[in-house]
Protein backbone atom coordinates (compact mmCIF):
# COMPACT_ATOMS: atom_id res chain seq x y z
CA UNK A 1 0.00 0.00 0.00
CA UNK A 2 1.44 3.32 -1.11
CA UNK A 3 -0.12 6.51 0.19
CA UNK A 4 0.70 9.98 -1.09
CA UNK A 5 -0.60 12.92 0.89
CA UNK A 6 -0.53 16.35 -0.72
CA UNK A 7 2.78 15.60 -2.42
CA UNK A 8 4.25 18.73 -3.95
CA UNK A 9 7.58 19.22 -5.68
CA UNK A 10 8.75 22.56 -6.97
CA UNK A 11 11.97 23.25 -8.84
CA UNK A 12 12.32 27.00 -8.51
CA UNK A 13 9.33 28.51 -10.26
CA UNK A 14 8.35 25.28 -11.99
CA UNK A 15 5.96 22.98 -10.17
CA UNK A 16 6.57 19.35 -11.13
CA UNK A 17 4.02 17.81 -8.80
CA UNK A 18 1.21 19.79 -7.25
CA UNK A 19 -0.71 18.61 -4.20
CA UNK A 20 -0.99 15.00 -5.35
CA UNK A 21 -2.92 12.68 -3.04
CA UNK A 22 -3.71 9.08 -3.87
CA UNK A 23 -3.48 5.52 -2.58
CA UNK A 24 -2.11 2.52 -4.43
CA UNK A 25 -3.81 -0.61 -3.12
CA UNK A 26 -2.57 -4.17 -2.99
CA UNK A 27 -4.05 -6.94 -5.09
CA UNK A 28 -4.27 -4.98 -8.33
CA UNK A 29 -2.13 -3.26 -10.90
CA UNK A 30 -2.34 0.49 -10.63
CA UNK A 31 -1.32 2.44 -13.68
CA UNK A 32 0.29 5.82 -13.50
CA UNK A 33 -0.70 7.55 -16.68
CA UNK A 34 0.16 10.95 -18.00
CA UNK A 35 1.84 12.86 -20.78
CA UNK A 36 5.57 13.56 -20.69
CA UNK A 37 6.44 16.02 -17.95
CA UNK A 38 3.25 15.26 -16.00
CA UNK A 39 5.24 14.41 -12.87
CA UNK A 40 5.01 10.62 -12.89
CA UNK A 41 8.72 9.96 -12.42
CA UNK A 42 9.14 12.75 -9.89
CA UNK A 43 6.28 11.33 -7.83
CA UNK A 44 7.82 7.85 -7.94
CA UNK A 45 11.20 9.24 -6.92
CA UNK A 46 9.61 11.00 -3.97
CA UNK A 47 7.92 7.76 -2.89
CA UNK A 48 11.29 6.01 -2.55
CA UNK A 49 13.00 9.02 -1.00
CA UNK A 50 15.36 9.93 -3.84
CA UNK A 51 13.76 13.36 -4.15
CA UNK A 52 12.57 15.30 -1.15
CA UNK A 53 9.03 16.67 -1.48
CA UNK A 54 8.69 20.44 -1.18
CA UNK A 55 5.66 19.64 0.97
CA UNK A 56 3.45 16.68 1.69
CA UNK A 57 4.60 13.12 2.23
CA UNK A 58 4.54 9.62 0.84
CA UNK A 59 4.47 6.38 2.80
CA UNK A 60 4.85 2.74 1.88
CA UNK A 61 3.11 0.29 4.21
CA UNK A 62 2.58 3.10 6.67
CA UNK A 63 6.05 4.58 6.88
CA UNK A 64 8.53 6.59 4.86
CA UNK A 65 10.52 4.31 2.55
CA UNK A 66 13.87 5.50 3.91
CA UNK A 67 12.99 4.43 7.45
CA UNK A 68 12.33 0.80 6.50
CA UNK A 69 14.76 -1.68 8.04
CA UNK A 70 14.49 -3.72 4.88
CA UNK A 71 13.67 -1.49 1.88
CA UNK A 72 14.41 -4.05 -0.85
CA UNK A 73 11.95 -6.60 0.53
CA UNK A 74 9.33 -3.91 0.91
CA UNK A 75 9.60 -2.06 -2.38
CA UNK A 76 11.18 -3.10 -5.65
CA UNK A 77 11.97 -0.09 -7.80
CA UNK A 78 12.71 0.39 -11.46
CA UNK A 79 13.02 4.14 -11.91
CA UNK A 80 15.02 4.09 -15.08
CA UNK A 81 17.03 1.39 -16.76
CA UNK A 82 20.13 3.53 -16.48
CA UNK A 83 20.51 3.22 -12.72
CA UNK A 84 23.41 0.80 -13.24
CA UNK A 85 27.15 1.46 -13.42
CA UNK A 86 28.13 0.85 -17.04
CA UNK A 87 31.48 -0.65 -16.06
CA UNK A 88 30.05 -3.41 -13.88
CA UNK A 89 28.60 -6.73 -15.00
CA UNK A 90 24.90 -7.41 -14.49
CA UNK A 91 25.63 -10.13 -11.97
CA UNK A 92 28.05 -8.00 -9.95
CA UNK A 93 25.52 -5.17 -9.94
CA UNK A 94 22.91 -7.50 -8.49
CA UNK A 95 25.46 -9.00 -6.07
CA UNK A 96 26.22 -5.54 -4.70
CA UNK A 97 22.51 -4.73 -4.37
CA UNK A 98 21.80 -8.08 -2.68
CA UNK A 99 24.71 -7.71 -0.27
CA UNK A 100 23.13 -4.63 1.37
CA UNK A 101 20.34 -6.86 2.72
CA UNK A 102 22.19 -10.15 3.08
CA UNK A 103 20.18 -11.61 0.18
CA UNK A 104 21.92 -14.84 -0.90
CA UNK A 105 23.70 -15.29 -4.21
CA UNK A 106 21.22 -18.00 -5.18
CA UNK A 107 18.53 -15.30 -5.39
CA UNK A 108 20.76 -13.22 -7.68
CA UNK A 109 21.06 -16.14 -10.08
CA UNK A 110 17.33 -16.77 -9.74
CA UNK A 111 16.32 -13.24 -10.81
CA UNK A 112 18.81 -13.41 -13.69
CA UNK A 113 16.97 -16.55 -14.87
CA UNK A 114 13.52 -15.07 -14.27
CA UNK A 115 14.28 -11.98 -16.34
CA UNK A 116 16.04 -13.97 -19.04
CA UNK A 117 19.46 -12.30 -18.87
CA UNK A 118 21.43 -15.16 -17.29
CA UNK A 119 23.40 -15.67 -20.51
CA UNK A 120 24.71 -12.07 -20.45
CA UNK A 121 25.07 -11.82 -16.66
CA UNK A 122 28.86 -11.55 -16.78
CA UNK A 123 28.98 -8.90 -19.47
CA UNK A 124 29.43 -5.23 -18.65
CA UNK A 125 26.07 -3.50 -18.34
CA UNK A 126 27.38 -0.62 -20.47
CA UNK A 127 27.11 -2.83 -23.54
CA UNK A 128 23.49 -3.75 -22.90
CA UNK A 129 20.71 -2.79 -25.29
CA UNK A 130 17.81 -0.77 -23.93
CA UNK A 131 15.75 -3.93 -23.59
CA UNK A 132 18.46 -5.86 -21.74
CA UNK A 133 19.05 -2.88 -19.46
CA UNK A 134 15.33 -2.83 -18.75
CA UNK A 135 15.40 -6.53 -17.85
CA UNK A 136 18.36 -5.93 -15.53
CA UNK A 137 16.41 -3.10 -13.90
CA UNK A 138 13.46 -5.43 -13.35
CA UNK A 139 15.79 -8.14 -12.00
CA UNK A 140 17.08 -5.56 -9.54
CA UNK A 141 13.54 -4.55 -8.57
CA UNK A 142 12.40 -8.09 -7.75
CA UNK A 143 15.66 -9.07 -6.02
CA UNK A 144 14.21 -8.74 -2.52
CA UNK A 145 10.90 -10.39 -3.52
CA UNK A 146 9.21 -7.16 -2.43
CA UNK A 147 5.58 -6.71 -1.43
CA UNK A 148 5.37 -3.56 -3.53
CA UNK A 149 6.65 -2.93 -7.04
CA UNK A 150 7.19 0.54 -8.46
CA UNK A 151 8.08 0.43 -12.14
CA UNK A 152 8.63 3.56 -14.20
CA UNK A 153 8.01 2.82 -17.89
CA UNK A 154 8.99 -0.86 -17.54
CA UNK A 155 8.16 -1.83 -21.12
CA UNK A 156 10.15 1.01 -22.63
CA UNK A 157 12.57 -0.52 -25.13
CA UNK A 158 11.34 -4.08 -24.73
CA UNK A 159 10.47 -6.28 -27.70
CA UNK A 160 6.87 -7.55 -28.00
CA UNK A 161 7.76 -10.76 -26.20
CA UNK A 162 9.29 -8.75 -23.35
CA UNK A 163 6.30 -6.41 -23.19
CA UNK A 164 4.02 -9.38 -22.80
CA UNK A 165 6.25 -10.90 -20.19
CA UNK A 166 6.20 -7.73 -18.08
CA UNK A 167 2.40 -7.58 -18.42
CA UNK A 168 1.98 -11.19 -17.28
CA UNK A 169 4.55 -10.71 -14.56
CA UNK A 170 2.95 -7.67 -12.93
CA UNK A 171 -0.51 -9.20 -13.26
CA UNK A 172 0.58 -12.38 -11.47
CA UNK A 173 2.38 -10.25 -8.91
CA UNK A 174 -0.77 -8.29 -8.14
CA UNK A 175 -2.88 -11.45 -8.18
CA UNK A 176 -0.71 -12.75 -5.33
CA UNK A 177 -1.99 -9.87 -3.22
CA UNK A 178 0.90 -7.48 -3.76
CA UNK A 179 0.95 -3.81 -4.67
CA UNK A 180 2.02 -2.79 -8.16
CA UNK A 181 2.38 0.77 -9.43
CA UNK A 182 3.61 1.15 -12.96
CA UNK A 183 3.80 4.17 -15.17
CA UNK A 184 3.44 4.35 -18.89
CA UNK A 185 2.49 6.77 -21.56
CA UNK A 186 1.35 3.83 -23.72
CA UNK A 187 -2.42 3.80 -23.37
CA UNK A 188 -2.85 0.48 -25.15
CA UNK A 189 -0.44 -1.15 -22.73
CA UNK A 190 -2.23 0.33 -19.73
CA UNK A 191 -5.59 -0.88 -21.02
CA UNK A 192 -4.22 -4.44 -21.05
CA UNK A 193 -2.23 -4.30 -17.83
CA UNK A 194 -3.81 -1.99 -15.29
CA UNK A 195 -6.94 -2.44 -13.20
CA UNK A 196 -6.90 1.00 -11.72
CA UNK A 197 -5.56 4.24 -13.11
CA UNK A 198 -4.16 7.41 -11.64
CA UNK A 199 -3.98 10.01 -14.36
CA UNK A 200 -1.54 12.88 -13.92
CA UNK A 201 -1.41 16.06 -15.94
CA UNK A 202 0.85 19.01 -15.21
CA UNK A 203 1.63 17.55 -11.81
CA UNK A 204 -2.00 17.23 -10.74
CA UNK A 205 -4.07 14.11 -10.22
CA UNK A 206 -6.71 14.38 -12.92
CA UNK A 207 -8.41 11.09 -12.27
CA UNK A 208 -8.17 8.18 -9.84
CA UNK A 209 -10.55 5.43 -10.89
CA UNK A 210 -10.83 1.96 -12.39
CA UNK A 211 -10.13 1.57 -16.08
CA UNK A 212 -13.81 0.80 -16.81
CA UNK A 213 -15.05 3.80 -14.83
CA UNK A 214 -12.64 6.09 -16.62
CA UNK A 215 -13.70 4.90 -20.03
CA UNK A 216 -17.37 5.20 -19.12
CA UNK A 217 -16.99 8.65 -17.66
CA UNK A 218 -14.76 10.15 -20.29
CA UNK A 219 -15.90 8.60 -23.54
CA UNK A 220 -19.29 8.39 -25.09
CA UNK A 221 -20.64 5.22 -26.53
CA UNK A 222 -22.67 5.71 -29.69
CA UNK A 223 -24.06 3.84 -32.67
CA UNK A 224 -23.11 4.63 -36.24
CA UNK A 225 -26.05 4.19 -38.58
CA UNK A 226 -26.12 4.24 -42.36
CA UNK A 227 -29.41 4.61 -44.08
CA UNK A 228 -30.65 5.90 -47.48
CA UNK A 229 -33.28 7.91 -45.60
CA UNK A 230 -31.49 9.69 -42.72
CA UNK A 231 -34.04 12.45 -42.20
CA UNK A 232 -36.90 10.01 -41.72
CA UNK A 233 -34.84 7.85 -39.38
CA UNK A 234 -33.75 10.85 -37.33
CA UNK A 235 -37.39 11.77 -36.90
CA UNK A 236 -38.32 8.20 -35.95
CA UNK A 237 -35.60 8.03 -33.31
CA UNK A 238 -36.27 11.41 -31.77
CA UNK A 239 -37.01 11.08 -28.08
CA UNK A 240 -36.00 12.72 -24.79
CA UNK A 241 -32.79 10.82 -24.05
CA UNK A 242 -31.60 10.07 -27.56
CA UNK A 243 -29.45 12.48 -29.51
CA UNK A 244 -29.01 12.07 -33.21
CA UNK A 245 -26.23 13.72 -35.13
CA UNK A 246 -25.94 13.89 -38.89
CA UNK A 247 -22.40 12.77 -39.76
CA UNK A 248 -22.69 12.33 -43.54
CA UNK A 249 -25.06 12.27 -46.51
CA UNK A 250 -26.40 8.89 -45.42
CA UNK A 251 -24.87 8.59 -41.97
CA UNK A 252 -26.06 9.29 -38.45
CA UNK A 253 -24.40 9.00 -35.06
CA UNK A 254 -26.91 8.05 -32.39
CA UNK A 255 -26.12 8.15 -28.71
CA UNK A 256 -28.26 7.35 -25.72
CA UNK A 257 -29.80 4.18 -27.16
CA UNK A 258 -28.57 0.66 -27.93
CA UNK A 259 -28.24 -0.63 -31.49
CA UNK A 260 -31.14 -3.10 -31.06
CA UNK A 261 -33.56 -0.34 -30.13
CA UNK A 262 -32.49 1.73 -33.13
CA UNK A 263 -32.95 -1.28 -35.44
CA UNK A 264 -36.41 -2.01 -34.01
CA UNK A 265 -37.51 1.61 -34.42
CA UNK A 266 -36.26 1.67 -38.02
CA UNK A 267 -38.08 -1.59 -38.82
CA UNK A 268 -41.31 -0.27 -37.29
CA UNK A 269 -41.07 2.87 -39.42
CA UNK A 270 -40.20 0.85 -42.52
CA UNK A 271 -36.81 2.54 -43.01
CA UNK A 272 -33.95 0.54 -44.53
CA UNK A 273 -30.72 0.28 -42.55
CA UNK A 274 -27.42 -0.39 -44.34
CA UNK A 275 -25.14 -0.38 -41.35
CA UNK A 276 -25.50 -0.41 -37.58
CA UNK A 277 -22.28 -0.31 -35.53
CA UNK A 278 -21.79 0.22 -31.81
CA UNK A 279 -18.72 2.34 -31.10
CA UNK A 280 -17.24 2.09 -27.61
CA UNK A 281 -14.82 4.71 -26.38
CA UNK A 282 -11.27 3.57 -25.78
CA UNK A 283 -8.96 4.32 -22.91
CA UNK A 284 -6.97 6.39 -25.35
CA UNK A 285 -9.97 8.64 -25.98
CA UNK A 286 -10.60 8.95 -22.27
CA UNK A 287 -6.98 9.83 -21.76
CA UNK A 288 -6.93 12.44 -24.51
CA UNK A 289 -10.14 13.97 -23.18
CA UNK A 290 -8.70 14.10 -19.66
CA UNK A 291 -5.23 15.40 -20.40
CA UNK A 292 -6.02 17.47 -23.46
CA UNK A 293 -5.44 20.75 -21.69
CA UNK A 294 -2.62 19.59 -19.49
CA UNK A 295 -0.12 18.38 -22.04
CA UNK A 296 3.10 20.19 -21.41
CA UNK A 297 4.80 19.54 -24.71
CA UNK A 298 2.08 19.78 -27.30
CA UNK A 299 2.65 18.87 -30.92
CA UNK A 300 1.40 21.15 -33.62
CA UNK A 301 -1.75 19.86 -35.28
CA UNK A 302 -0.91 18.49 -38.71
CA UNK A 303 -2.65 20.37 -41.50
Amino acid at each position, binding site marked *: MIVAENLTKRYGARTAVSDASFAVRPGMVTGFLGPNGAGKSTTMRMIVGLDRPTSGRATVNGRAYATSPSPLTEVGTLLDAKAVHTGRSARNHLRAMAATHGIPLSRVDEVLEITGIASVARKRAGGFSLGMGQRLGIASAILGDPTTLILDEPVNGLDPE*GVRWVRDFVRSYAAA*GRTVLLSSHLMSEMALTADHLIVLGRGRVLADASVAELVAAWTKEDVAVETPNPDALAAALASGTVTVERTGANALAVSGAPAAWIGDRAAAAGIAIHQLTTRTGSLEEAYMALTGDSVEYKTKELA
Partner: protein
Amino acid sequence: MTITAPQQAPAAAPATPGSAFRLSLGRVIRSEGIKLVSLRSPWVSAALTIVISLGITTLVAIAMRNFLSEMPVAGDGNAMIAQAVTTPLAFTALLVTITGSMLITGEYSTGMIRSTLTAAPDRLRSLFAKAIVLVGYTVLVSVVTSVLGITLASALFAGTDIALDFGDLAGAVLPYVYSAVYLVAAALLGLGFGYLLRSGAGAIAVAVGILFILPIVPQVLAMAPGMEWVAEAARYLPSNAGNALVQGSGDDVWQGALTLAVWVAAVLGLGAIALKSRDA
Protein backbone atom coordinates in the same frame (compact mmCIF):
# COMPACT_ATOMS: atom_id res chain seq x y z
CA MET B 1 24.34 -12.95 -28.20
CA THR B 2 20.99 -14.50 -27.47
CA ILE B 3 18.70 -13.80 -24.60
CA THR B 4 16.78 -16.71 -23.25
CA ALA B 5 13.05 -16.33 -22.92
CA PRO B 6 12.01 -15.10 -19.50
CA GLN B 7 10.18 -17.56 -17.35
CA GLN B 8 6.81 -17.01 -15.81
CA ALA B 9 6.99 -15.12 -12.56
CA PRO B 10 6.56 -17.39 -9.59
CA ALA B 11 3.33 -16.60 -7.79
CA ALA B 12 4.65 -16.13 -4.31
CA ALA B 13 2.86 -15.07 -1.19
CA PRO B 14 3.70 -11.62 0.16
CA ALA B 15 6.86 -11.63 2.20
CA THR B 16 6.36 -11.58 5.92
CA PRO B 17 7.02 -8.18 7.53
CA GLY B 18 9.81 -9.60 9.69
CA SER B 19 11.99 -10.42 6.73
CA ALA B 20 15.33 -12.09 7.34
CA PHE B 21 16.87 -9.76 4.79
CA ARG B 22 17.62 -6.47 6.49
CA LEU B 23 20.00 -3.62 6.09
CA SER B 24 22.99 -3.31 8.37
CA LEU B 25 26.13 -1.22 8.27
CA GLY B 26 28.26 -4.33 7.83
CA ARG B 27 26.20 -5.42 4.85
CA VAL B 28 26.30 -1.98 3.24
CA ILE B 29 30.11 -1.97 3.67
CA ARG B 30 30.23 -5.42 2.05
CA SER B 31 28.13 -4.14 -0.83
CA GLU B 32 30.47 -1.19 -1.32
CA GLY B 33 33.39 -3.63 -1.27
CA ILE B 34 31.80 -5.72 -4.04
CA LYS B 35 31.20 -2.52 -6.00
CA LEU B 36 34.84 -1.44 -5.69
CA VAL B 37 36.45 -4.72 -6.72
CA SER B 38 33.97 -5.31 -9.56
CA LEU B 39 35.06 -2.19 -11.42
CA ARG B 40 38.15 -1.94 -13.58
CA SER B 41 39.34 1.51 -12.55
CA PRO B 42 40.42 0.76 -8.94
CA TRP B 43 42.60 -2.09 -10.23
CA VAL B 44 44.11 0.08 -12.95
CA SER B 45 44.70 2.84 -10.44
CA ALA B 46 46.36 0.44 -7.96
CA ALA B 47 48.60 -0.95 -10.70
CA LEU B 48 49.55 2.56 -11.83
CA THR B 49 50.30 3.60 -8.26
CA ILE B 50 52.64 0.64 -7.78
CA VAL B 51 54.38 0.98 -11.16
CA ILE B 52 54.90 4.75 -10.86
CA SER B 53 56.13 4.40 -7.28
CA LEU B 54 58.63 1.68 -8.10
CA GLY B 55 59.88 3.66 -11.10
CA ILE B 56 60.52 6.80 -9.08
CA THR B 57 61.99 4.80 -6.21
CA THR B 58 64.45 3.24 -8.66
CA LEU B 59 65.52 6.66 -10.00
CA VAL B 60 65.91 8.15 -6.53
CA ALA B 61 67.81 5.15 -5.16
CA ILE B 62 70.22 5.09 -8.13
CA ALA B 63 70.82 8.83 -7.79
CA MET B 64 71.49 8.47 -4.05
CA ARG B 65 73.83 5.56 -4.63
CA ASN B 66 75.87 7.49 -7.22
CA PHE B 67 76.05 10.46 -4.90
CA LEU B 68 77.28 8.21 -2.08
CA SER B 69 79.98 6.54 -4.15
CA GLU B 70 81.61 9.93 -4.71
CA MET B 71 81.23 11.14 -1.18
CA PRO B 72 80.78 8.20 1.15
CA VAL B 73 79.01 9.26 4.31
CA ALA B 74 77.67 6.91 6.87
CA GLY B 75 74.03 7.90 6.51
CA ASP B 76 70.95 6.77 8.38
CA GLY B 77 69.87 3.68 6.41
CA ASN B 78 66.22 3.92 7.47
CA ALA B 79 66.00 7.58 6.43
CA MET B 80 67.71 6.95 3.07
CA ILE B 81 65.38 4.09 2.18
CA ALA B 82 62.35 6.09 3.38
CA GLN B 83 63.49 8.96 1.15
CA ALA B 84 63.62 6.66 -1.88
CA VAL B 85 60.29 4.97 -1.12
CA THR B 86 58.21 8.03 -0.15
CA THR B 87 59.33 10.49 -2.85
CA PRO B 88 56.70 9.13 -5.32
CA LEU B 89 53.91 10.17 -2.91
CA ALA B 90 53.65 13.55 -4.63
CA PHE B 91 52.26 11.74 -7.67
CA THR B 92 50.50 8.78 -6.11
CA ALA B 93 48.54 11.05 -3.77
CA LEU B 94 46.93 12.56 -6.85
CA LEU B 95 46.14 9.11 -8.24
CA VAL B 96 44.33 7.96 -5.12
CA THR B 97 42.48 11.29 -4.94
CA ILE B 98 41.18 10.62 -8.43
CA THR B 99 40.26 7.05 -7.47
CA GLY B 100 38.41 8.32 -4.42
CA SER B 101 36.43 10.85 -6.40
CA MET B 102 35.63 8.38 -9.20
CA LEU B 103 34.18 5.97 -6.67
CA ILE B 104 31.22 8.32 -6.29
CA THR B 105 31.22 10.48 -9.43
CA GLY B 106 31.04 7.27 -11.49
CA GLU B 107 27.77 6.53 -9.71
CA TYR B 108 26.38 9.95 -10.48
CA SER B 109 27.40 9.88 -14.14
CA THR B 110 25.92 6.41 -14.74
CA GLY B 111 22.81 6.75 -12.57
CA MET B 112 24.03 3.98 -10.26
CA ILE B 113 23.59 6.36 -7.32
CA ARG B 114 19.81 5.86 -7.57
CA SER B 115 20.24 2.10 -7.18
CA THR B 116 22.66 2.65 -4.32
CA LEU B 117 20.31 4.95 -2.45
CA THR B 118 17.17 2.90 -3.01
CA ALA B 119 18.94 -0.20 -1.66
CA ALA B 120 20.45 1.71 1.27
CA PRO B 121 18.39 4.88 1.77
CA ASP B 122 20.30 6.07 4.85
CA ARG B 123 22.59 8.42 2.99
CA LEU B 124 25.12 9.05 5.74
CA ARG B 125 25.48 5.33 6.29
CA SER B 126 26.00 4.90 2.56
CA LEU B 127 28.74 7.55 2.57
CA PHE B 128 30.33 6.06 5.66
CA ALA B 129 30.39 2.58 4.11
CA LYS B 130 31.98 3.94 0.95
CA ALA B 131 34.59 5.80 3.00
CA ILE B 132 35.44 2.68 5.02
CA VAL B 133 35.93 0.63 1.85
CA LEU B 134 38.03 3.38 0.30
CA VAL B 135 40.22 3.55 3.42
CA GLY B 136 40.73 -0.23 3.31
CA TYR B 137 41.59 -0.13 -0.38
CA THR B 138 44.03 2.77 0.03
CA VAL B 139 45.80 1.24 3.04
CA LEU B 140 46.21 -2.01 1.11
CA VAL B 141 47.59 -0.25 -1.98
CA SER B 142 49.88 1.84 0.22
CA VAL B 143 51.23 -1.14 2.17
CA VAL B 144 51.85 -3.20 -0.98
CA THR B 145 53.56 -0.22 -2.63
CA SER B 146 55.75 0.42 0.43
CA VAL B 147 56.77 -3.23 0.87
CA LEU B 148 57.67 -3.53 -2.81
CA GLY B 149 59.45 -0.16 -2.67
CA ILE B 150 61.49 -1.12 0.39
CA THR B 151 62.45 -4.43 -1.22
CA LEU B 152 63.47 -2.69 -4.42
CA ALA B 153 65.39 0.10 -2.67
CA SER B 154 67.20 -2.42 -0.43
CA ALA B 155 68.22 -4.37 -3.51
CA LEU B 156 69.46 -1.20 -5.22
CA PHE B 157 71.47 -0.23 -2.12
CA ALA B 158 73.01 -3.70 -1.87
CA GLY B 159 76.74 -3.49 -1.26
CA THR B 160 76.50 -0.18 0.60
CA ASP B 161 75.96 0.43 4.31
CA ILE B 162 72.40 1.48 3.61
CA ALA B 163 69.89 -1.07 4.90
CA LEU B 164 66.69 -1.17 6.89
CA ASP B 165 67.56 -1.22 10.59
CA PHE B 166 64.80 -2.66 12.75
CA GLY B 167 66.90 -1.80 15.78
CA ASP B 168 65.36 1.63 15.28
CA LEU B 169 61.82 0.34 14.86
CA ALA B 170 60.17 3.77 14.64
CA GLY B 171 62.63 4.92 11.98
CA ALA B 172 62.14 1.70 10.02
CA VAL B 173 58.34 1.59 10.07
CA LEU B 174 56.80 5.00 10.80
CA PRO B 175 57.51 6.63 7.40
CA TYR B 176 55.35 3.99 5.74
CA VAL B 177 52.58 4.31 8.31
CA TYR B 178 52.58 8.06 7.66
CA SER B 179 52.57 7.40 3.90
CA ALA B 180 49.45 5.31 4.30
CA VAL B 181 47.84 8.03 6.42
CA TYR B 182 48.63 10.66 3.78
CA LEU B 183 47.24 8.52 0.96
CA VAL B 184 44.08 7.74 2.95
CA ALA B 185 43.58 11.46 3.53
CA ALA B 186 44.10 12.15 -0.18
CA ALA B 187 41.60 9.44 -1.16
CA LEU B 188 38.98 10.73 1.29
CA LEU B 189 39.48 14.28 0.00
CA GLY B 190 38.74 12.97 -3.48
CA LEU B 191 35.62 11.20 -2.20
CA GLY B 192 34.44 14.37 -0.48
CA PHE B 193 34.96 16.49 -3.61
CA GLY B 194 33.15 13.79 -5.58
CA TYR B 195 30.07 13.97 -3.35
CA LEU B 196 30.22 17.74 -3.44
CA LEU B 197 30.63 18.22 -7.20
CA ARG B 198 29.11 14.95 -8.55
CA SER B 199 31.14 15.32 -11.73
CA GLY B 200 34.32 13.34 -12.31
CA ALA B 201 35.93 16.09 -14.35
CA GLY B 202 35.04 18.72 -11.74
CA ALA B 203 36.33 16.69 -8.82
CA ILE B 204 39.59 15.84 -10.62
CA ALA B 205 40.10 19.49 -11.60
CA VAL B 206 39.65 20.62 -8.00
CA ALA B 207 41.92 17.84 -6.72
CA VAL B 208 44.69 18.72 -9.19
CA GLY B 209 44.23 22.39 -8.32
CA ILE B 210 44.58 21.88 -4.60
CA LEU B 211 47.22 19.15 -4.61
CA PHE B 212 49.42 20.32 -7.49
CA ILE B 213 48.76 23.89 -8.57
CA LEU B 214 48.07 25.75 -5.33
CA PRO B 215 51.42 24.67 -3.78
CA ILE B 216 53.26 26.31 -6.69
CA VAL B 217 51.66 29.72 -6.17
CA PRO B 218 53.35 30.52 -2.83
CA GLN B 219 56.73 29.40 -4.19
CA VAL B 220 56.44 32.17 -6.74
CA LEU B 221 54.80 34.77 -4.52
CA ALA B 222 57.00 34.22 -1.48
CA MET B 223 59.97 35.72 -3.36
CA ALA B 224 58.26 39.09 -3.31
CA PRO B 225 58.83 41.18 -0.18
CA GLY B 226 56.02 41.23 2.35
CA MET B 227 54.62 38.00 0.99
CA GLU B 228 56.16 35.66 3.54
CA TRP B 229 52.73 34.97 5.03
CA VAL B 230 51.80 33.23 1.78
CA ALA B 231 54.49 30.65 2.35
CA GLU B 232 53.28 30.25 5.92
CA ALA B 233 49.70 29.71 4.71
CA ALA B 234 50.92 27.22 2.11
CA ARG B 235 52.00 24.89 4.91
CA TYR B 236 48.33 24.20 5.42
CA LEU B 237 47.75 22.90 1.90
CA PRO B 238 47.12 19.14 1.91
CA SER B 239 50.13 18.23 -0.21
CA ASN B 240 52.50 20.28 1.96
CA ALA B 241 50.91 18.90 5.11
CA GLY B 242 51.36 15.41 3.70
CA ASN B 243 55.02 16.13 3.00
CA ALA B 244 55.51 17.41 6.52
CA LEU B 245 53.87 14.28 7.91
CA VAL B 246 55.90 11.81 5.88
CA GLN B 247 59.29 13.48 5.51
CA GLY B 248 59.33 16.03 8.30
CA SER B 249 60.47 15.64 11.86
CA GLY B 250 59.37 16.76 15.31
CA ASP B 251 56.35 19.07 15.35
CA ASP B 252 56.01 18.87 11.54
CA VAL B 253 54.61 15.38 11.87
CA TRP B 254 51.67 16.01 14.14
CA GLN B 255 50.94 19.40 12.59
CA GLY B 256 50.85 17.78 9.16
CA ALA B 257 48.58 15.01 10.40
CA LEU B 258 46.26 17.50 12.09
CA THR B 259 46.10 19.69 8.98
CA LEU B 260 45.18 16.69 6.83
CA ALA B 261 42.54 15.62 9.34
CA VAL B 262 40.94 19.08 9.24
CA TRP B 263 40.91 19.06 5.42
CA VAL B 264 39.32 15.62 5.30
CA ALA B 265 36.73 16.48 7.95
CA ALA B 266 35.80 19.73 6.19
CA VAL B 267 35.57 18.38 2.63
CA LEU B 268 33.93 15.07 3.54
CA GLY B 269 31.58 16.97 5.87
CA LEU B 270 30.53 19.31 3.06
CA GLY B 271 30.12 16.28 0.80
CA ALA B 272 27.90 14.63 3.41
CA ILE B 273 25.76 17.76 3.71
CA ALA B 274 25.39 17.87 -0.09
CA LEU B 275 24.44 14.18 -0.21
CA LYS B 276 21.96 14.54 2.62
CA SER B 277 20.25 17.69 1.39
CA ARG B 278 20.23 17.41 -2.40
CA ASP B 279 17.94 15.21 -4.48
CA ALA B 280 19.73 12.14 -5.78
